[in-house]
């Protein structure tokens, strides 16, 4: 995986700093990792991050309860699928209908050095987060320098 250093991204710099960092990659998609399999035209839209443990994948899935979302991680492949449904209403009428509902499934390719066995997922406030740690072999090791 190409690890891009985004100098200038300061997570404490507030909203603007975060938006700028995301924008830089939106405009230069080739800087990042290659997702393969399915493109950005498939729901949900994904953002990939790295932290010290590995890869963090985020998707916005408003209105979809955690038990309606399936996440599976195989070696080199992540699949997110599920279904959303509108609240059942009758005897009234819609003035405005912008929210969308339906089934979805998206698979993306993952970098090699990730440990699928240790992946975890959580959904909070309509934000899905999948964390896939690096294999111990891929993690940087601190080597102490001996005095000769």
């Amino acid at each position, binding site marked *: 995986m190409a690890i891009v250093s*985004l100098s200038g991204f300061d997570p404490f710099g507030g909203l603007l700093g975060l938006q700028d960092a995301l924008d830089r990659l939106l405009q230069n998609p080739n800087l990042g990792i290659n997702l393969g399999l399915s493109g950005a035209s498939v729901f949900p839209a994904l953002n990939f*991050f790295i932290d010290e443990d590995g890869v963090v994948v985020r998707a916005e899935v408003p209105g979809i309860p955690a038990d309606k979302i399936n996440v599976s991680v195989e070696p080199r492949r992540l699949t997110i699928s599920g279904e959303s*449904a509108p609240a059942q209403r009758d005897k009234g009428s*819609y003035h405005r209908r912008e929210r969308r509902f339906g*089934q979805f499934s998206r698979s993306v390719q993952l970098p090699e050095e990730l440990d699928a066995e240790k992946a975890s997922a959580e*959904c909070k406030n309509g934000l899905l987060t999948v964390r896939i740690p690096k294999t111990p072999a891929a993690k940087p090791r601190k080597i102490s320098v001996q005095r000769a």
Partner: protein
Amino acid sequence: MTAQELTPKEKQELQEPAKTRPGRYYVPDVDIYEDENTLWLWADMPGVSQEKVSIDLHDNILTLRGEVLLEDYKDLTPVYTEYNVGHYSRRFTLSEDIQIDPDRITARMSDGVLELQVPKVERAKPRRITVMS
């Protein structure tokens, strides 16, 4: 309906100049539904917690705002992105035809969706008038 496939929708940036903080705001997707007694509103605001939503009704203008939690992005370095992140804001002018009861508006957040229940007041409800012969 259930067999329909969900496709991603590009987020729409808020064009209103009325901003008090730096950064971009987005327009949440909204459904509005009216039945006999109530006006319902749902707004998609992924990443917004219950404590970070504000709803204001003033001079028939309903303003919804939601702030995403920047802490969620602490220690994360983006490497590939397909969408941007920002706070949400949207404003509606309520129709004069619908009399609502502002004191009884209720709101709740679940899974990143704001649900507003706006009760209509008695006099706005349709009344059946019997024509006497």
